[in-house]
């Protein structure tokens, strides 16, 4: 049996078939030429889905909340895809992907597709393939793509580069006003959720978050993230959360903000891909025999590192080396 071409798989996935979509995500995850073919086929079909990221600390209730959101969206008969990212073990490279246990109600629903993905050593709360996988799920025709990140701390913020609305989930008693004032996780939120709101400390946490928002000077775009209380375990507050998401969506729709934000994210993606590819080229270059003399001159303190990099860049560009007195090249 020959491997099916991405376009055939994509057509089958858009007909609502499960296995071909599962295979497409695997191809994207595996990388290489097949992944590029999938990306090329999926890209023109993407952009119709609304994408939502769910992030927050481990154990905050992201999976349960995601499952509840799926239920709320399904009751409107919207079709939903979920990409749930869990960490790979730094020791074995293996992973246990268990988020979908909490989304079990939707297994047999043809309007729902759930996929687990391991980070495979990538920091930032997502895997390298996650943005492309989101685009494939989008291209498969789902109305919504929900992206659940690994439990993240204060600086792993890839998700905001991938989705339209970012939800940050915290719990009552999760921190104090100093935590809330810290930069990082909270700053990326378009919607703040205090989950497990039946636990003590809801009012303080809500007040800390509101105070943080009152004094925030970074949100120059004019959107103030609503703070929503939920009890994902029994579905409490999930309708409020959906209303908040829709509120952000409606705000983005105004003044063409959504289109501008998406275009900016895509261009950022071009930049990261370009940077990664240039880095690989540079690494290959550094092991090239042709620059062995540069390396030994640096080692002998005959050529300084800046001038050495000038030579290597010039060789990469295929042009003449720039003047040694040009440190900005």
């Amino acid at each position: 049996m020959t491997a099916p071409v991405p376009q055939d798989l994509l057509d089958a996935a858009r007909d609502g078939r499960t296995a071909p979509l599962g295979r497409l995500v695997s191809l994207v995850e595996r990388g290489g030429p097949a992944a590029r073919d999938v990306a090329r086929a999926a890209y023109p079909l993407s952009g119709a889905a609304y994408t939502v990221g769910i992030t927050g600390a481990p154990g905050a209730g992201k999976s349960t909340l995601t499952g509840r959101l799926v239920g709320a969206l399904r009751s409107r008969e919207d079709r939903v895809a979920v990409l749930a990212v869990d960490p790979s073990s730094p020791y074995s490279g293996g992973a246990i992907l268990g988020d979908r246990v909490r989304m079990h109600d939707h297994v047999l629903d043809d309007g729902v597709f759930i996929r687990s993905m391991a980070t495979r050593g990538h920091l930032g709360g997502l895997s390298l393939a996650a943005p492309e996988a989101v685009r494939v799920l989008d291209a498969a025709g789902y109305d919504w793509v929900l992206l659940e990140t690994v439990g993240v701390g204060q600086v792993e913020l890839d998700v905001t580069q991938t989705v339209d609305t970012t939800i940050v989930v915290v719990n009552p008693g999760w921190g104090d006003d100093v935590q809330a004032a810290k930069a990082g996780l909270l700053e990326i939120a378009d919607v703040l959720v205090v989950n497990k709101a039946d636990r003590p400390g809801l009012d303080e946490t809500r007040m800390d978050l509101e105070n943080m928002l009152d004094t925030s000077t970074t949100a120059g775009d004019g959107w103030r993230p609503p703070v929503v209380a939920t009890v994902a375990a029994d579905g409490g507050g999930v309708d409020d959360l959906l209303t908040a998401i829709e509120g952000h969506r409606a705000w983005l729709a105004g003044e063409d903000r959504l289109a501008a934000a998406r275009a900016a994210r895509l261009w950022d993606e071009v930049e990261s891909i370009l940077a990664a590819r240039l880095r690989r080229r540079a690494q290959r270059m550094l092991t090239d025999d042709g620059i062995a003399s540069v390396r030994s001159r640096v080692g002998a303190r005959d050529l300084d590192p800046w001038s050495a990099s000038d030579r290597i860049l010039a060789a990469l560009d295929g042009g003449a080396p720039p003047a040694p007195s040009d440190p900005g090249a």
Partner: protein
Amino acid sequence: MPARILVAKPGLDGHDRGAKLVARALRDAGYEVIYTGIRQRPDEVARVAAQEDVQILGLSILSGSHLALTRKTIAALQDAGATDVHVVVGGTIPTTDVPKLLEAGASAVFPTGTPLDDLLAGIARLTGDGEPEPATP
């Protein structure tokens, strides 16, 4: 690229210590393991296998209904279009039933008491790389 394995518990028995132990051993051997939880129906298991595009589906069955559940799951995999998934069966399987499970389409059977190393070697043979992905810290 690590092979992806679904560990599932079809049927009504609620004992998943063995399944979780195997899941952890597979993770530590470098596999990506999707775990579904207990009391799954064969059609649910098959659908998850298709969504997750796993190479191997491990069924943990302690209820005594391993033959019926394995047959139903394999049929459900066909229905779900997940035709290239290797099904392996573990649990309380009498040795006399092992050939029957293989005949029903299982790729391997690991009855209770199978040493973990034998199980890992069997899985590695099925994933085709002989060895799971080497550790990459």
